[in-house]
């Protein structure tokens, strides 16, 4: 998005709002990741503690999801840069 037409009060305010939003997005990412990896990795409820195979699965799931997310982000940014040309900053 292009914030270059904003005055400094607007930019400062916008930055605060974006920071807040990033915090919320991070929290959302975190809980969705827990849900996703739990859903994929935990299927045995004969005991209440994580089995080592489940734990390994959860660790790999977390790792892989973050790498996946990063790669999607990189392609997404490239696409935005291409689409919008050289004008202004993109998300």
């Amino acid at each position, binding site marked *: *998005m292009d*914030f270059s*037409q*904003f*005055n400094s*009060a*607007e930019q400062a*305010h*916008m930055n605060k*709002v*974006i920071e807040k*939003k990033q915090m919320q*997005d991070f929290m959302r990412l975190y809980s969705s990741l827990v849900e996703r*990896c739990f859903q*994929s*990795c935990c299927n045995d409820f004969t005991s209440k503690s994580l089995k080592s195979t489940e734990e*390994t*699965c*959860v*660790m*790999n*799931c977390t*790792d*892989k*999801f973050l*790498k*996946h*997310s990063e*790669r*999607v*982000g990189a*392609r*997404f940014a490239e*696409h*935005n840069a291409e*689409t*919008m040309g050289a004008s202004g900053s993109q*998300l």
Partner: protein
Amino acid sequence: MSFLGRGASSSNQGGMNTEKLEMAMTELDMVTDVFNRLVSVCHSKCINTRYAEPDLNKGESVCIDRCVAKFFEVNKKVGEKMQAMGANATAGGGSSFGSL
């Protein structure tokens, strides 16, 4: 919700053009929404959920790149289609679909 209680002169408070800021926030929300859907749908298409290893393998990596490219093509097609159908009349004449 967030627009209630701001009073009538809400379009200029504290030297800020709030309408412009709100529009920027709406755009930010929309981009975030699209990105989250993209992450989720490409995960379901490309990632093996047995999670035998922590890294993306070659096949998954290539699949992600193609998935994102294809998603944007679908995004463009759907946008053009909706514009052609006049469905975006509701959107107050926004004309930027397909470009995201």
